[in-house]
């Protein structure tokens, strides 16, 4: 009996050790992949900076430009404006797209009406929205906001609609049998099922928002990071242009990974 127990313990220990080693190996592969990708990117950049001189600045010159920007008040002013625009477009598109996605997912009538419009909306290239919004609303804050909200909503709506369709129908039966009030059934049963899709939609919406905001600013705004990048391009200040782009990308990545990922972790804590 004691021998059997000892053998079982040894088997369990071996299995745990194998599992730990496999985990460690996977982590190493992951880190190595990232390091190779970053080093490769820098190497490519360095080669291009030699071959396509002076249009591609060297990494050192770009780093110096970034350092100067970080000490400039104008950069923070532009950044603040761009962040406000990104936030407004992100919130509006996520909210409108989510509500529309839930409505279309739950109601056949809403689906019949909105789905063709959303399909068309998905097919229209984003710059078309920007140009039409400028023509309709004029150059100003409104044009960018309208263009971005209309451009992002179909994507968010589509993600959420698919999630509503894929919900667990047996839980719908459960709340019906127990006669749970509709708002409570939505809050406690349906909404939590949509959280992974809502987070994906938010992540997608955020990523597209900041990219499109930069385009909108470059085309039709006198200020913001996009306008600053466009101005640097017009003046052939390639170091500044690249430095602005890199700083902005890094900040957006930090926000995406920090804020959206935190919300996701908290909302799905029951899975751990």
């Amino acid at each position, binding site marked *: 009996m004691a021998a059997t127990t000892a053998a079982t313990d040894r088997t369990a220990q071996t299995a745990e050790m194998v599992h730990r080693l496999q985990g460690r190996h996977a982590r190493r592969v992951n880190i190595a992949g990232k390091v190779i990708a970053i080093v490769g990117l820098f190497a490519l950049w360095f080669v291009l900076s030699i071959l396509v001189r002076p249009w591609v600045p060297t990494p050192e010159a770009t780093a110096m430009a970034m350092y100067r920007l970080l000490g400039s008040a104008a950069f923070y002013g532009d950044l603040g404006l761009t962040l406000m625009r990104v936030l407004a477009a992100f919130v509006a598109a996520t909210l409108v797209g989510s509500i529309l996605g839930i409505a279309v997912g739950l109601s056949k009538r809403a689906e019949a009406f909105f789905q063709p419009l959303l399909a068309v909306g998905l097919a229209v290239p984003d710059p078309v929205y920007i140009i039409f919004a400028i023509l309709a609303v004029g150059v100003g804050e409104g044009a960018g906001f309208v263009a971005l909200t209309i451009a992002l909503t179909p994507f968010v709506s589509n993600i959420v609609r698919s999630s509503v369709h894929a919900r667990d129908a*047996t839980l719908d039966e459960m709340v019906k*049998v*127990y006669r749970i009030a509709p708002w409570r059934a939505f809050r406690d049963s349906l909404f*939590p099922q949509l959280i992974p899709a809502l987070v994906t939609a938010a992540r997608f919406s955020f990523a597209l928002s900041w990219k499109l905001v930069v385009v909108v600013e470059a085309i039709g705004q006198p200020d913001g990071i996009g306008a600053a990048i466009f101005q640097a391009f017009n003046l052939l200040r390639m170091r500044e242009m690249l430095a602005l782009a890199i700083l902005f990308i890094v900040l957006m990545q930090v926000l995406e990974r920090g804020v959206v990922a935190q919300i996701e972790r908290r909302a799905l804590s*029951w899975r751990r």
Partner: protein
Amino acid sequence: MTPKGSSLMPDSAPFVLDIEDLSVSYGAAEQLAIERIDLSVAKGEFVAIVGPSGCGKSTMLNVLSGLMAPTRGRVDVDGAPLYGAGAKAPHLGYVFQSHRLLPWRTVRQNLELVLSASDVPPDRWDANIDRILDILHIPQFKDTWPMRLSGGQRQRVSIARALLVEPSYILMDEPLSTLDEVTARTMRQELTAIWQRTGSTIIFVTHSIREAVYLADRIIILTRGPASVVDDVRVPIARPRAYEDPQISEVEAGIVERVLDEWGLARTEAEAGA
């Protein structure tokens, strides 16, 4: 359930569930799933429904739970129609084959959800939840996520949820079929104890005749489909019962003999010889 005019239940017994001329058909072709069933269930009865796979047992439960309106006939609960009752519809309990707990809500929150639809005032929710978890022997899991529980513990929570709303009757759709045999045996014993303690009316669907004989007062045997009642068998075995009791085997054998031809089952050589 008692077929109308049956002598199994005294005439004065208060019927919780009264089904008259119930038929259900599906789809454009109106394929019949249930055909003209007349039955009644008395308060406090433990009734098992057995039938072969696909005979219409689940359809019947869907009708009795209010999920699916009958094509024809009437279902009365405590003397009032189940369909069209609106806000006055009776409270029912349902223990599904899978637990159907909300995984993102703790045990307590899952139970509070059904209490929110009951007449129990919120200041009594906690006491009611404690009481029911005590009955089910799982008070330690009150603030646990369902995915941290074993299959048997989840099904206990599911039973607690059904009992909590003080239902007119509880429907159970093969609730032990997904559990391992050891857990299922324990749960059968406990289910009997809970039923005796709470005096609930239970309608238990199973494909296991032995399980039906062990648990129920009466067994309703359905045809192969469309479902109609073949027989209504009273189980004449005193409680507490043992799962391996020869009396249970005897009643089971009698029912098997009765349904072999009806369900189109092949007889074993021994049965053929007998």
